[in-house]
């Protein structure tokens, strides 16, 4: 173990250096200190040893890949009944709920450490499963074009998928083809482009995982800044003989947000100073980081917020026509549905939000450019968006959990009973508690969003009076959105 100074002092140093732009002493909701951290790797040295091992990532991926391989086969040749097919239940009930309710809010992009989709591509690219192999890998190693080095490709790919979500979540072969396509796509991309280009710039899941993991209570960061600063040979950026340069093309020495950190733990393996750490922290701290904000990520926030409302209406709503449209029962109906979905998330939500931000800017008389205020404040949509998805996901998992033990015993829907759980009755649990959970989630999301909006406005405008006035219209927007979700989910 190398130099571990007082982390508290180091954080102060960082704030002074303006690396994150978070004012010192900020408190979420007035009582959670934004710079509170609990260093797990310092507290549990065994954890660091586990993360340093190259086998950790390999085994994690292998476990999920094994399940995925069986599920994919089930998707293609198992029963076409979604609820009885391992693939659909595993992905759209189990994985989705685990992702939204547990993984992203608490463990950031830990899913990316487990994700089986890029494994084949990465093994080929590295020509190795576990150890680092010297020499050139099986890849042209091209850099992703600079113009596309942002979240726009992901936004569009995600939107393209979102238009088919009704079909996608209910048809086994469609899900199977999509996931197989992603595996093959990841292979092709990794043969042409360097490292995890697919994960970072093309994976449709990666976009919202990245944005919403800003809300996570866990982070991977460098530990003591001065150690990184004084270490001229940046091993985490260029790699060593034993471990790879950051596959996600981040610079762990200055990384300030979870957005593009895929929890591959490679930086733990490159760092000869043992200066990387996994830490617990208050949720949402990355939203305040005044660095690398952009319209691409702002649009990701609009898409996710709009999609949550539309899915709640289509999947949990009482309107049969909407369901027929989403199910492509008629071509015309589907086109109406798809175009209004695309229009809502890409144009309507940003336009309405923009109007409220514009009003706030007028009210406050602030002279910062509108686009900057608009971009920055858009990050305050992340808490309410995420909590709305959490509220929505309760309504996925609680009524439908019983399908999970069923497909574990009968993955293909062929009448097997491997573990004696094939006969578990469909039996919703917690239905009376669910509305309380949903309301609590929405109110927490609103409070958090308001707080983040206020903090960002103050950070952007640098003046309490202006910030107060500029935040008033966005607060009304956020309240309206929460009201809408209240109506959709419990009204």
């Amino acid at each position: 173990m190398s130099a571990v100074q007082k982390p508290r002092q180091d954080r102060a140093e960082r704030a002074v250096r303006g690396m994150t732009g978070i004012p010192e002493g900020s408190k979420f909701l007035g009582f959670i200190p934004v710079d509170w951290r609990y260093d797990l790797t310092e507290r549990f040295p065994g954890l660091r040893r586990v993360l340093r091992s190259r086998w950790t990532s390999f085994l994690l991926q292998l476990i999920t890949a094994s399940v995925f391989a069986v599920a994919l086969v089930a998707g293609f040749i198992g029963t076409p009944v979604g609820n009885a097919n391992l693939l659909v239940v595993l992905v759209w009930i189990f994985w989705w709920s685990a992702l939204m309710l547990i993984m992203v809010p608490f463990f950031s992009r830990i899913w990316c450490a487990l994700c089986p989709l890029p494994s084949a591509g990465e093994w080929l690219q590295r020509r190795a499963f576990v150890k680092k192999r010297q020499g050139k890998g099986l890849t042209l190693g091209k850099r992703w074009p600079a113009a596309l080095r942002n979240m726009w490709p992901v936004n569009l790919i995600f939107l393209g998928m979102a238009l088919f979500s009704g079909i996608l979540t209910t048809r086994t072969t469609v899900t199977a083809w999509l996931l197989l396509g992603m595996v093959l796509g990841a292979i092709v991309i990794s043969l042409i482009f360097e490292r995890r280009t697919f994960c970072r710039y093309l994976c449709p899941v990666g976009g919202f995982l990245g944005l919403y993991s800003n809300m996570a209570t866990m982070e991977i960061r460098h530990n003591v800044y001065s150690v990184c600063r004084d270490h001229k040979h940046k091993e985490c950026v260029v790699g060593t003989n034993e471990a790879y340069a950051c596959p996600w093309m981040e610079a762990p020495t200055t990384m300030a947000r979870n957005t593009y950190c895929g929890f591959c733990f490679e930086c733990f393996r490159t760092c000869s100073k043992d200066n990387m750490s996994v830490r617990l922290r208050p949720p949402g701290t990355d939203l305040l980081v005044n660095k690398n904000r952009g319209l691409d990520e702002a649009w990701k926030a609009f898409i996710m917020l709009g999609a949550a409302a539309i899915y709640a209406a289509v999947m949990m709503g009482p309107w049969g026509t909407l369901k027929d449209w989403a199910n492509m029962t008629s071509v015309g109906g589907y086109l109406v549905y798809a175009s209004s979905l695309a229009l809502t998330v890409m144009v309507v939500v940003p336009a309405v939000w923009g109007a409220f931000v514009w009003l706030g800017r007028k009210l406050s008389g602030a002279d910062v450019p509108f686009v900057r205020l608009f971009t920055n404040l858009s990050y305050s949509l992340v808490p309410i968006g995420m909590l709305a998805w959490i509220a929505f996901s309760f309504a996925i998992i609680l009524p439908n959990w019983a399908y999970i033990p069923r497909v574990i015993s009968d993955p293909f829907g062929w009448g097997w009973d491997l573990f004696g759980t094939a006969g578990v009755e469909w039996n919703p649990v917690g239905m009376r508690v669910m509305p309380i959970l949903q309301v609590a989630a929405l109110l927490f999301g609103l409070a958090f969003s308001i707080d983040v909006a206020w903090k960002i406005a103050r950070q952007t405008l640098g003046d309490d009076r202006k910030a107060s006035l500029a935040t008033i219209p966005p607060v009304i927007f956020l309240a309206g959105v929460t009201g809408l979700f209240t109506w959709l989910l419990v009204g």
Partner: protein
Amino acid sequence: MRWQEIVAGILVAACLIGLPAAALAYQNHRETRVVTLEMMQWEYRPAEIRVKKGEQLRLQLIAKDVVHGFQVDGIANVEVRPGKPEEVIIWAQDAGVYRFRCSMFCGLGHAAMVGQIVVEE
């Protein structure tokens, strides 16, 4: 460190090829009866399918005219479009009579479109 890669490679092959292969082998060692079930307005042909207990029934579903469905309560429910045969595999573990019916509204006689699987001891 060559051996570590070999161990890893064996693990990968065992898991990613071995597991699905084992699953298919587990399925295929059973006695299988293949039956083609034609669906048309408003009947199934054959309307009765007999299998022995423990046998596996591999049903090839073919819709002859319009979209039909094949629903066995609690076991299967499949939508079958004309020109796109579907396959359903049912493992007859318990003796008895299992009724199936059309699950896609297919016209006037839709409600009368029924059949049964008889699982004999």
